[in-house]
């Protein structure tokens, strides 16, 4: 999926990009490529973890005033953890990654269904 994002480029970020000759767009792309529960929780690579950790920290800070569906979160995170333990084999996490990705998809669907409820309930 591709969308157009408008962001403010802060001065410090811009100067770093200039100094190291980095396209902001590419940088942001490479960052968000690494934000992933399936990869982080099955990953062995230390390089991969920072982006997801940043995400987790962001979620932790934002938790109080966000509209997260906590019941769903509890349920699906539990499923996530269980699926992970069941599927972690000595294959570098390939099987587990696929399995938890399914959980994430289901979770996403459930959240969307929950948020659309107020419309469907009116029908």
């Amino acid at each position, binding site marked *: 999926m591709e969308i157009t994002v408008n962001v403010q480029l802060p001065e410090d970020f811009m100067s770093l990009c200039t100094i190291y000759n980095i396209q902001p767009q590419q940088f942001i792309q490479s960052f968000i490529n690494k934000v992933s*529960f399936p990869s*982080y*929780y099955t990953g062995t690579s230390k390089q991969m*973890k920072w982006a997801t*950790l940043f995400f*987790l*920290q962001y*979620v*932790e800070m934002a938790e109080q005033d966000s509209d997260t569906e906590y019941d769903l*979160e*509890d349920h699906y*995170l*539990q499923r*996530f*953890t269980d699926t*992970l333990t069941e599927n972690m084999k000595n294959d570098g996490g390939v099987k587990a990654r696929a399995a938890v990705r399914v959980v994430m998809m289901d979770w996403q669907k459930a959240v969307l269904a929950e948020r659309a409820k107020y419309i469907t309930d009116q029908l």
Partner: protein
Amino acid sequence: MKTEINNHWLTIPLEFRVACTVYRLKEQEVLQIFINHATVYDSLADAYSLGYSEASKTIGIYVAEKRRTPNGSHAFSHCLANAANCFRWINELAKKVLSSSVAKRKKSLLYVDELYKNMKRVYTSSDTFYLDENRSLNFTKDFTVLCELHNCYPAEYLENFMNKISTAEMQARTGLKIPNDNFTMAFFMKVVLGFGRENNEVAEFTEKEVDFICEMDEIRLRIHTVRNLDQRITILKKFYLNHYQDINTSN
């Protein structure tokens, strides 16, 4: 048959050892601070006093569960009237609204002194308690009176205190936003921040400790997916234990 328990020997729980290692505290120092802040006065007072309330109420809850004194305290049985008076005066002090806690606690020492002098020691044979050849604790008059009053051995109070200390449990609760009503742990965390400690200078972190702090930061976030309190505690316990073993094998 009566089981003999060695009441002059302290079993230091692993979780307590781990907590002290994580926060670089001496076990002996933490226990001594606990002893210094457990007073008869604060067991009776409702007003909150930093540190004193937590320490005294930790003992209060323990003795309320044990109920060892259906027939009164053994140590005071020979001087009941006098002892009762002392406790009554301390209680009156505790209920008085006007003066400050510091002043009232100081004044209560007068009566604690009297109690200490008159009691026939049953549970506290000495004011010094040896943890091992090199480390010892000193009991205050308040602390020994609290032992004798409730027919308890000092080791019981100390073990009960230590058993309530668990960094893993505290962390797990904080992470899941489950209210934490463990005020004994709160007391410990105050000590971590310097409460009651003489030496506040911070030694340099070793490489292992720096690694540990980074890992601690990560694991806190990583366990976001674990929503079950017990599971979280298990994971964190293991994590802290690893650090503890790591530190202790290197020394």
